[in-house]
């Protein structure tokens, strides 16, 4: 069929995609072109086109700034802590929920643990604040029993565990869904056959359940690795004032704070250096892309599909 005929045939389909494409062009592709700001000394009055082009100047400043490397280190550390302490939890929870026989109880547990996924981080952190903060439930209890108080919310040393706890509370129940569905998809006759052959509960788990979950676990791991540099932007931003920049600055917040500044917490606000912030953002975006592609290659090496197939 010639393309003219196909175009005429499908013109209403194309028409339908136009609104979405137009929005993506404006809010996703236009900013990609706007990355050029990272290679300029951006001047608001000159605009993108007429500002001075300075090449890699901003990047040179960036890599020479110890604060930037500190944010980079924070990103990696928090990401690693989350990988170790968060990643296995939904799997363990799914294995446990899956063995609950009553469908009513199972439904109830799921409904409860899904819930926090829909709370915004502002809500999650507010709730944490009221329980663990200086005037929170924990410290009221500690004081009552004469133990010295501990404001978890402002302690920079344990901050990485605090944000992980918040992420777990918010997302672990939601992460459960995928693994539960994968468990439900395992052929039950395998279990029966193994039981007939004399395999006990643990051997069936080891030889049937685990291989059955392998594909989805690898996929989730790939997604996680690909997003390793995007840890809890909102979380960090909201709590930055309480724990200080030293603990809370990650690549995303660094780009934001230096680039735009934000109209709050003026003590820690840098100016609006758009070019510098954009350079930090681009640095992160490029590294993230490499991570995603690399993680996918890793998935292929394991014989799994990953995000896309070979």
């Amino acid at each position, binding site marked *: 069929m010639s393309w003219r005929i196909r175009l005429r045939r499908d013109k209403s389909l194309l028409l339908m995609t136009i609104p979405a494409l137009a929005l993506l062009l404006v809010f996703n592709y236009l900013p990609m072109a706007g990355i050029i700001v990272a290679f300029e000394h951006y001047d608001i009055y000159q605009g993108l086109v007429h500002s001075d082009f300075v090449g890699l100047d901003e990047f040179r400043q960036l890599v020479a700034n110890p604060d930037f490397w500190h944010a980079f280190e924070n990103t990696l550390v928090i990401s690693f802590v989350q990988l170790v302490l968060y990643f296995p939890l939904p799997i363990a929870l799914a294995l446990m929920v899956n063995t609950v026989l009553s469908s009513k109880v199972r439904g109830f547990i799921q409904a409860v*643990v899904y819930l926090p996924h829909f709370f915004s981080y502002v809500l999650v952190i507010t709730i944490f604040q009221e329980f663990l903060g200086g005037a929170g439930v924990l410290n009221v209890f500690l004081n009552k029993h004469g133990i010295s108080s501990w404001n978890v919310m402002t302690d920079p040393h344990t901050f990485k565990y605090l944000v992980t706890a918040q992420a777990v509370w918010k997302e672990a129940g939601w992460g459960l869904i995928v693994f539960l569905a994968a468990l439900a998809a395992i052929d039950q006759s395998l279990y029966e056959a193994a039981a007939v052959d004399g395999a006990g509960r643990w051997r069936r788990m080891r030889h049937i359940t685990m291989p059955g979950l392998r594909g989805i676990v690898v996929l989730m791991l790939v997604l996680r690795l690909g997003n390793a540099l995007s840890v809890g932007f909102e979380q960090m931003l909201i709590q930055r004032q309480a724990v200080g920049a030293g603990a809370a600055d990650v690549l995303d917040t660094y780009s934001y704070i230096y680039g735009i500044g934000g109209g709050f917490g003026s003590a820690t606000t840098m100016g609006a250096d758009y070019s510098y912030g954009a350079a930090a953002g681009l640095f992160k975006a490029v590294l993230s892309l490499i991570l995603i592609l690399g993680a996918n290659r890793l998935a292929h090496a394991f014989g799994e599909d990953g995000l896309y197939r070979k």
Partner: protein
Amino acid sequence: MSSLTQSPPSRAVTTAPRKRAKGREVWEESPTWFGQFGKGTVLTVVCALVIVPVWAVVITSFSTKSSINAAGGLVLVPHGLSLQNYQLIFSGGTVSQALYVSLFVTLIGTALSMLVSVLAAYGLSRPRSFGQRPLLMMLIVTMFFNGGLIPTFLVVSDLKLYGSMWAMILPSMVNVFNILIIRSFFQNTAAEMIEAARLDGANEWRLLWSVVIPTSRPVLAVMTMFYAVTYWGTFFNALLYEPDSRKWPLAMVIYEYTYSGNQMPGMGTTGIGGLQNASQLGLQMCVVSLSLVPIIVLTPFVQKHFSKGMLTGAIKG
């Protein structure tokens, strides 16, 4: 990368969660008393970790200043509940205003998002349509790479959206991930039904409206909820683009007056009588409770469809 979008639709169907038979299979040994008890304890604790905080927040919002003071913070055991906190924040002022903003952003935003997403999903779901592959690539690239915060901020500012409520809607109106999930459901609509409708003279618009949408209600319900919840909790766009506190949504108000510890100003009743008798904490928990309401009300209705939507999404990217 193209196979991401072209994997056979059958995969989503075969992995759909199966209904589990009642009771234990005959060949399964019954669990030990200890194992059963341990599992029950763990699951109870997990559920309590969610229920107790939500309960405490809601109960505190209904508590008077004296019972909040007596508890030294959040109230866990209800004692002399009252509506006075709610009366105060609904009497006009910051919170009432934020509630309007949040409702506006959520209703308009969700409607527009769904409209655009469903259209795009259908436009890209018919087999071998013109230009489908390059268009899909255009969508998917945005999932892997973006210009970053600063260039996006400059674009939004250049469009004169800074300070406008549309800045909380337009930049996040399209969610590519959601579109791909809806698309994969549309692809699973029975081909016979579409063929029959086409023979009866239905064009693509008619097909979408009368055949595809009615048969995809579950996924559309889930996606509506996803969008609605995102708009309801919108925070960062407000922080970035909204300098005027009268245009702040609820989440921004909570951030400003609860987390960063500023006192809530302009509660409507000019302070004197009302605020003296009300506890700041009680008022704050009112706002938090208000933000929870739509989520707690909506979740049970769409919960049974979550797994289908999530799984399709996870497997098909």
